[in-house]
């Protein structure tokens, strides 16, 4: 059991900066995120796209913003729990007991949900029959590529993941790469390599095809693919891989008794607390009249929510407002030596 003042759910820019604000006012926290790295949408959706509306930063990419925030919160030694999803919350007396997907338990005074639009999960095939094979002979990510050795693998998608795995697996497997159009969103050099391998017969490329059906008894045997113009091909396959990026799902947050409206959590604008005492929501996941889904709004919300957490973490103390320019306590917490 990990005992802290606050648990932050979500390691996007809003969650990271809230961690900073908690640190400044002397509260401890840890951060849980379902992705394998910090940064949230900034890192997952647009790491290379420039952002132009971070105050006092004329231009930076999602990745740079994330790295700068990580740098900024370094003095507080905040521990991250990545690849973890918060599953259950239980109120025990005045504190919260929180359980994650792999069974880590936290005992905290308050919770800040900075969950963006929910946790990122792989997008799946629209074909219903795929569910039956998922995790056995149909995958949306690869953990152990050795299972594909000398097998027929049909890969769907046109981004870097699909192209990179098609190239990689073509060394050990018989690969079919199926994509809905002639153009690819992945790197041009990979597209060229895939086309070369296709010309040499080392890989089969099918463009303008999409999945129509998978069939097999216990494992996949055949995949049916359909051309834009209606023609259907049957291809033998031992394994099917789908790479369609990630989608955000609210997931277990729906079960926590929060006021939810259209995938967002309603909060007050005084301290961004939800209808449940001790649970705050900030960033894209919260809503209130006038809400703007901007990173800068998330920073503001995080600063106020951190102060809102104070009364739960230190009920007998009064929080005094201070500036980092002059506050000795804040500077000590930042590790500034004079």
């Amino acid at each position: 059991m990990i005992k802290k003042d606050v648990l932050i759910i979500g390691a996007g820019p809003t969650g990271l900066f809230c961690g900073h604000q908690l640190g400044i006012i002397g509260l401890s926290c840890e951060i849980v995120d379902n992705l394998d790295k910090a940064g949230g949408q900034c890192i997952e959706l647009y790491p290379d796209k420039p952002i132009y509306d971070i105050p006092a930063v004329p231009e930076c990419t999602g990745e740079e913003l994330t790295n700068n925030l990580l740098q900024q919160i370094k003095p507080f030694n905040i521990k991250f729990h990545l690849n973890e999803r918060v599953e259950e919350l239980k109120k025990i007396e005045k504190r919260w007991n929180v359980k994650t997907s792999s069974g880590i338990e936290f005992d905290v005074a308050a919770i800040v949900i900075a969950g963006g639009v929910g946790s990122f999960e792989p997008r799946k095939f629209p074909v219903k029959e795929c569910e039956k094979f998922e995790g056995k002979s149909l995958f949306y990510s690869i953990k152990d590529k050795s299972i594909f050795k000398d097998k027929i693998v049909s890969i769907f998608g046109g981004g870097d993941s699909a192209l990179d795995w098609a190239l990689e697996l073509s060394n050990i497997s018989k690969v079919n790469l199926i994509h809905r159009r002639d153009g690819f969103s992945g790197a041009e050099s990979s597209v060229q390599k895939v086309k070369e391998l296709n010309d040499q017969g080392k890989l089969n490329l099918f463009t303008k095809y999409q999945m129509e059906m998978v069939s097999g008894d216990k494992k996949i045997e055949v995949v049916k693919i359909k051309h834009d113009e209606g023609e259907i091909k049957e291809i033998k396959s031992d394994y099917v891989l789908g790479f369609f990026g990630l989608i955000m799902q609210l997931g277990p947050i729906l079960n926590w008794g929060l006021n939810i409206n259209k995938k967002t959590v309603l909060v007050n604008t005084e301290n961004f607390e939800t209808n449940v005492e001790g649970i705050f929501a900030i960033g894209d996941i919260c809503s209130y009249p006038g809400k703007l889904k901007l990173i800068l709004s998330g920073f503001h919300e995080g600063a106020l929510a951190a102060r809102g957490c104070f009364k739960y973490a230190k009920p007998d103390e009064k929080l005094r407002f201070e500036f980092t320019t002059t506050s000795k306590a804040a500077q000590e917490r930042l590790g500034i030596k004079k």
Partner: protein
Amino acid sequence: MAKITYYTHDSKTHTIDVQNGLTVMEGAIQNDIPGIDADCGGGMACATCHVYVKEEWLSKLPKKEDGEEDMLDMAFEPKSNSRLSCQLIVSDELDGLEVNIPSKQG
């Protein structure tokens, strides 16, 4: 102002007056038309505002910008008449536009 008709998956028809300058996505969100999630808020980063445009309108719409087709690769059951509704900015020229909202966004 343009009249936009959204056909939702529950076989309902919603015809709405949408102000010029808003996107077809925003027209749906502001009028509580179900089936358009718009998770990323219009940033062409999620493909959850995917719609099927009635064929006769395809050529009348502004062309896809770089990135829209890439994003449509990620959409749920994309077809040749697929568009991201966050990229369709409403103007008088779009008066009468009809779009079908897919059964799911992901």
